[in-house]
């Protein structure tokens, strides 16, 4: 089996751009070294069988959950929404966008004007046929006066209108070849025009909602007339909210659920020995774990200090000890190796206490103490990572104070405020989005406060550059700039790890999210 990862915090999730296709296949292949049965997913695809109650145990829910798509922030609601509703765009296992409710699309040259064809003959669970109006409404709720997290990525739309019942035209403020990927954002799901009763959502999905107790469980029933052939094969689907990783694992082992997400990496080896279970791993698409310093604040305005810290972290050791090897070392920027623009020429930065000591000395800070703020609120093992960082710096004679701060309110009170703190980033839809959001001068989330006009210019050029080779050169240079000068130590990118009972078919790897792009309820079936 294969797996991919997903992030868990409120950051919006990214998906692969369609250009990630080829390298995506290669990397998922690499993941198979751990789970050799990975490719069996394709073999299974023979004939899905209908029936059974599929019970999923998932982390990423809360008693405050709602089915209103403007509130989705984590896995449980994403997976739940895709049972009842459909998105505009789906992604194939390699991450390439394919048609869902928008069947196909075409861009005028320059990728500024787009025409989308609405799928015909799709019916809502209330019997109404889905049309362009429903799609316009479902996009409109994320624009204008709204608290939708998708608002930002839809800002580039200057005009969106119905051409006819089955066609929509979109005009963007500037060309964007990846626009269909943007429409694949998980917040954008389709409901009938004017719909507001989010406690009883109506959609075009393969199931209808039976019951919903936020933070406890959701129950779905098969519709039977799903427009996607061979999909939505379970009679009933039950999504249980199980927050504790040990509890999830125990539930899977004792057969109380059929699938779980976010395995504790330390249990993976154990679970892989269990003959009743399948472990699915997707390498290096998960969360990017970082320690971020604000380059405008003392002493981090000193480039040599930043370099010292980057050389002084033992990435391999952290990955081994905290993630049991289920992560890849980061190269001090948040782009991952699955992205086609990932700089393969730049050497992986390694632990080098001598270099760290050299740069630290050059920085001329004496034996100054440096404080790193970390918390379980950043991510579960942030404090462990920080403690190991502290130890590895000792060899370079650098004193790091690790301050454990409150998990509650961490993103409000510490992130973007503390001079040096633990941060994780999720995958972004494209290289452009990664660079613009994490390092762009205009971004509110530029947590290292590294604002470099030269870099912005570089990214702007790359966005407009249509020649892949030239674009690649520009992005390669951008990564070098960040890694060399930026305030971020990105030391690990995790794997997504899912567990399934052996009889669950269709549990394939997906380059976007775990649990088969959060669509295992739709794509799976019982053997």
């Amino acid at each position, binding site marked *: 089996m294969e797996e991919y990862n997903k992030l868990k915090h409120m950051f919006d999730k990214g998906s692969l751009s369609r250009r990630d296709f080829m390298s995506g296949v290669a990397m998922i292949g690499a993941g198979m070294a751990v789970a050799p049965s990975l490719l069996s997913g394709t073999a299974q695809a023979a004939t899905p069988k209908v029936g059974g109650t599929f019970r999923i145990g998932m982390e990423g829910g809360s008693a405050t959950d709602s089915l209103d798509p403007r509130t989705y922030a984590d896995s449980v609601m994403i997976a739940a929404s895709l049972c009842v509703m459909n998105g505009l765009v789906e992604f194939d296992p390699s991450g390439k966008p394919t048609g869902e409710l928008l069947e196909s699309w075409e861009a005028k040259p320059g990728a500024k004007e787009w025409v989308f064809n609405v799928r015909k003959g799709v019916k809502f669970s209330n019997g109404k046929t889905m049309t362009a109006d429903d799609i316009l409404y479902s996009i409109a709720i994320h624009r204008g006066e709204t608290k939708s997290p998708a608002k930002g990525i839809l800002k580039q739309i200057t005009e969106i209108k119905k051409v006819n019942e089955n066609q929509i035209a979109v005009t963007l403020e500037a060309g964007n070849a990846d626009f269909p990927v943007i429409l694949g954002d998980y917040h954008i799901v389709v409901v009938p025009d004017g719909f507001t009763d989010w406690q009883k959502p109506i959609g075009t999905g393969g199931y209808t909602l039976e019951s919903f107790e936020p933070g406890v469980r959701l129950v779905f029933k098969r519709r039977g007339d799903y427009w996607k052939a061979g999909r939505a094969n379970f009679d009933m689907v039950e999504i249980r909210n199980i927050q504790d990783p040990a509890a999830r694992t*125990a539930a899977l082992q004792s057969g109380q659920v059929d699938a779980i997400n976010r395995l504790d990496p*330390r249990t993976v080896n154990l679970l892989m020995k269990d003959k009743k279970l399948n472990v699915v791993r997707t390498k290096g698409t998960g969360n990017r774990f970082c320690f971020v310093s604000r380059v405008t604040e003392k002493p981090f305005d000193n480039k040599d200090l930043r370099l010292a810290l980057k050389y002084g972290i033992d990435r391999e050791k952290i990955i081994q*000890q905290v993630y049991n090897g289920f992560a890849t070392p980061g190269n001090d920027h948040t782009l991952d190796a699955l992205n086609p623009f990932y700089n393969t020429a730049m050497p992986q930065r390694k632990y080098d206490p001598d270099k760290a000591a050299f740069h630290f000395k050059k920085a001329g800070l004496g034996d100054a103490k440096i404080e790193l703020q970390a918390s379980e609120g950043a991510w579960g093992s942030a404090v462990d990572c920080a403690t190991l960082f502290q130890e590895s710096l000792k060899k370079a004679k650098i004193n790091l104070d*690790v301050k454990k701060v409150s*998990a*509650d309110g961490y993103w409000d009170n510490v992130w973007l405020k503390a001079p040096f703190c633990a941060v994780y980033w999720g995958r972004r839809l494209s290289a452009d989005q990664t660079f613009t959001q994490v390092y762009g001068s205009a971004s509110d989330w530029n947590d290292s406060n590294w604002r470099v006009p030269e870099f912005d210019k570089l990214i702007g050029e790359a966005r407009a550059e249509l020649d892949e080779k030239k674009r690649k050169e520009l992005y390669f240079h951008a990564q070098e700039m960040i890694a060399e000068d930026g305030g971020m130590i990105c030391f690990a990118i995790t794997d997504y790890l899912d567990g399934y009972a052996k009889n669950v078919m269709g549990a394939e790897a997906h380059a976007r999210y775990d649990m088969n792009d959060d669509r295992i309820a739709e794509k799976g079936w019982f053997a």
Partner: protein
Amino acid sequence: MKLFGYKPTATAWLGLAIITIFIVIAVFADVIAPYSESESVGQTWDDPSWDFLLGTDNIGRDMLSRLIYGARMTIGVALVTTILSFLIGTTAGFLAAVGGTVIDQILSRIVDVMLSIPLLIFALIILSVFGSSIVTLVLTLAVLDSTRVFRLARAVATNLVVMEYVEAAKLRGEGLWWIMRREILPNALPPMISEFGLRFCFNFLFVASLSFLGLGIQPPYADWGGMVRDNGKAISFGLPAPLWPALAIAMMTVGVNLVVDWILSINSRPSGASAEM
């Protein structure tokens, strides 16, 4: 040999021995511990071996060394917290019982109100007002704990206040403080000492329970409660790592309470009343 004029029983000796050993370990941690408290010397959760007698912890640090160093923080913080909470709680509790209805109701209701606020919210507010430091931690825990001590102290003292000897003291015109100290305290000691033994041990774990709020022992320093917490997951796949700190807490708990039992038995053995002479 006698202690405070009494001869300890065999079990009391055992308890005293455990406590003494732990205190010696805490004081001489630097000399005894085979590794440093913070250095990651092995793999995650290595099995016990000659190199690591109790194996390693969740990020490869030597478990034994962390237990030894952890004794300092754990015993120190728990002891200070418990003493503080008993000073506050017992005084207030006795005062409530002796001082008459008005004082009693005021104190009792204040405590009720405090206890009624969920711990999480209470801790968050303390944190936002005072920030996180070891002093904040100790004070927070002591205040929270003292409310519980208060309930017990008041309950015990209320029973005593109606006794003849207290009535007599009141009639003699003794002051509140005198009555609390000379009449109530000696007679209320047994349940209070017993409670002290338990609260002290609860506090080993209590200290760690707020650590997700940053209110706790800061890394890389070890404390037993935190060690159980950090390594707790290992037990769910059958690794013994969290057993060691738990065992240390258990031994300390048993040790303290063996001594407590002995002190209690001195107190409750006037005549033929006891089964064991």
